[in-house]
């Protein structure tokens, strides 16, 4: 044996968006270490935003330079294909707008006990945790890797890289701190629990296929015989880990608690970016690794999709906290997307379903970031006006803001001329052509139930009288920009969806790399 190691081949250009984000995160850590305290925010914010923009530009550059790639990069660890790049672009865009939402949402000193003297002192001294920016970048890097990982080990590591900073960030809300810490703790415990499931599934699948490479698992399905229980249980347990991340029923419990407790910009990031990344990974596992096993998993995913849509929509009705309501709505939307996940049959149908999912992710991601952006603007003296009763009569107090939120809610309900309509149309029509008519019927019924609670908020805002001591509206310029951008995107995708639909179907054309 020689003492040299052959250097691995790394496709740096293909990986550049990922590397830029991780690199910027590490630079951010160095800034924390060496920059004087009063300068840190001034470094961190532009650094974070610029790196996200640069990564986005690199995604476009990669596609423009060599066309849509379709290969496994970095010794087969990362899949560089159309869906991956589309999802990267989506995540980077959503992360960018979510970062812009960050205002005074974070606790000045995480270690101070809520309500203690230390906390008051930290507030009065204007302390701030600028570490949140590198942490967000770590999480975003994890999302990028998660959606593009080509083997289960990379996927697991990416899952942790994505989740760990998010566990942290969830606990750093400035107001309602106990709720926030509770949310972080729950998210951490349950996240670790689900990661264990994921890892166990990986181990069982490795036992079955002798490889953790997605495409090798796929090829082993036809060659290995007699160990089906290993395969089924491995795949099911792996599925638990993935379903947990998208918040599918019955693994959804964490979502309302965490969305409610986390600082709202982080909630926006989780509701958009994490969901996108998790669907990217879920599709890779189910379509690439288990693609030939479709007859076995599709009834299970059917059941999960139905449960997710129905439970998400029904539970949202009785919510009184706007963030919890949006969390349940996010659960229901995950169910809607799942209807297209099962709609597989042949390459053409698959690429139709995939492009529908990709469009849905962009449309829903932007709408939901916009909605959470509005949530940050409506303030009570003690922070955000979270209770729905406080939103009564907002239409009279601040008609423009209320109209924008009403518009986002209508988009989530899927009213025509909003992006939500085409998103639903895309996934449902894919599901119908994939033979999942019953699923679509359930989806439409769930949409109708969901429309009820969206409209209820609209009615509350426009047809109730405002309370005398109603919430005030704060409109930082960046937040206003984010909400405006999201509203614009919701309109444009609703009236003129063609370019993005084209882009999505182009990205979906070659399907996932195998």
């Amino acid at each position, binding site marked *: 044996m020689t003492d040299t190691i052959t250097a691995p081949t790394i496709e740096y250009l293909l990986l550049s968006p990922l590397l830029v984000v991780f690199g910027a995160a590490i630079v951010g850590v160095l800034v924390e270490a060496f920059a004087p305290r009063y300068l840190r925010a001034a470094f961190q914010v532009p650094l974070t935003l610029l790196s996200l923009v640069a990564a986005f530009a690199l995604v476009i550059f990669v596609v423009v330079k060599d066309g849509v790639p379709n290969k496994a990069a970095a*010794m087969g660890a990362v899949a560089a294909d159309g869906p991956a790049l589309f999802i990267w672009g989506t995540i980077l865009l959503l992360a960018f707008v979510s970062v812009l939402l960050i205002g005074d949402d974070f606790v000045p000193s995480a270690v101070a006990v809520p309500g203690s003297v230390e906390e008051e002192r930290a507030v009065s001294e204007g302390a701030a945790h600028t570490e949140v920016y590198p942490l967000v970048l770590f999480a975003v890097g994890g999302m990028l890797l998660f959606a593009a990982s080509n083997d289960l080990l990379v996927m697991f590591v990416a899952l942790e890289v994505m989740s760990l900073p998010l566990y942290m960030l969830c606990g750093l809300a400035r107001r309602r701190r106990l709720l926030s810490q509770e949310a972080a703790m729950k998210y951490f415990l349950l996240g670790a629990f689900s990661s264990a499931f994921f890892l166990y599934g990986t181990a069982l699948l490795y036992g079955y296929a002798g490889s953790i490479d997605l495409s090798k698992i796929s090829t082993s399905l036809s060659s290995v015989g007699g160990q089906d229980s290993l395969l089924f249980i491995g795949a099911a347990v792996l599925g638990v880990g993935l379903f947990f991340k998208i918040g599918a029923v019955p693994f959804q419990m964490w979502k309302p608690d965490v969305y409610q407790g986390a600082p709202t910009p982080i909630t926006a990031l989780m509701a958009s970016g994490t969901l996108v990344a998790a669907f990217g990974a879920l599709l890779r596992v189910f379509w690439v690794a288990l693609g030939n096993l479709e007859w076995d998993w599709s009834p299970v995913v059917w059941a999960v999709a139905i449960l997710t849509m129905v439970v998400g929509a029904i539970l949202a009705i009785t919510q009184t906290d706007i963030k919890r309501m949006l969390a349940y709505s996010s659960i229901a939307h995950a169910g809607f997307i799942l209807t297209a996940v099962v709609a597989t049959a042949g390459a053409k149908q698959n690429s139709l379903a995939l492009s529908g999912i990709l469009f849905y992710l962009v449309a829903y991601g932007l709408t939901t970031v916009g909605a959470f952006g509005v949530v940050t603007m409506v303030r009570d003296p003690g922070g955000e006006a979270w209770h729905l009763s406080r939103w009564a009569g907002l239409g009279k107090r601040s008609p423009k803001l209320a109209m924008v939120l009403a518009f986002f809610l209508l988009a989530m309900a899927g009213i025509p001329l909003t992006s939500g309509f085409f998103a639903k149309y895309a996934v449902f029509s894919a599901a119908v052509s994939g033979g999942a008519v019953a699923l679509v019927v359930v989806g439409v019924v769930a949409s109708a139930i969901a429309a009820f609670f969206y409209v209820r908020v609209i009615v509350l805002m426009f047809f109730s009288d405002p309370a005398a001591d109603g919430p005030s509206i704060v409109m930082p310029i960046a937040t206003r920009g984010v909400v405006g951008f999201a509203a614009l995107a919701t309109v444009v995708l609703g009236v003129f969806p063609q370019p993005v639909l084209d882009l999505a179907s182009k990205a979906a054309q070659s399907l996932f790399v195998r």
Partner: protein
Amino acid sequence: MNFASPAFWPPTTQEIVFLLLGVIAVGSAVLVVTTRQLVHAALWLVVSFGALAGGYLVLTAEFVAWVQILIYVGAIVVLLLFGIMLTRAPIGRSADLDSGNQIAALVVGVATAGVLVSVLVAGFRHAYMPLTPGAGAAKPLGSSIFRTWVLPFEALSVLLLAALIGAIVLSRTDIRGR
């Protein structure tokens, strides 16, 4: 993994050693949850982990075995012991270590173990793989980590960095404003 499998009887020396280590590991694990002294439980855990490391060794996974000893025996159990001592948990026999749910826990644990064991048996009953000495040593592992698995490895280092930053955020008390 479909090599011709030799007969189960007579067992080889390796198989006998492996079985013995397995008995030790399971036995000490049972003692961990049944002993009435918290410190003893931690120490039985050392035995269990050690036996597991021995099992790895028999399977030629040298590197993993030493990592098991260094990290689990060396670090994690020590951490546990420190935890017990620093939180002034009662040292010595205590009667309230069992909760009322032990029957349910037992059922769940046995059921889970049953499922897993049956799956593994079903899956690997006929699987056989000859062992090559040295395949699990540091060198081949290293060269494969830095070649095939270089990206997840680097991602792991990023993960650790992120965890470090998180720990600092949660524990740092010297934050002062601008």
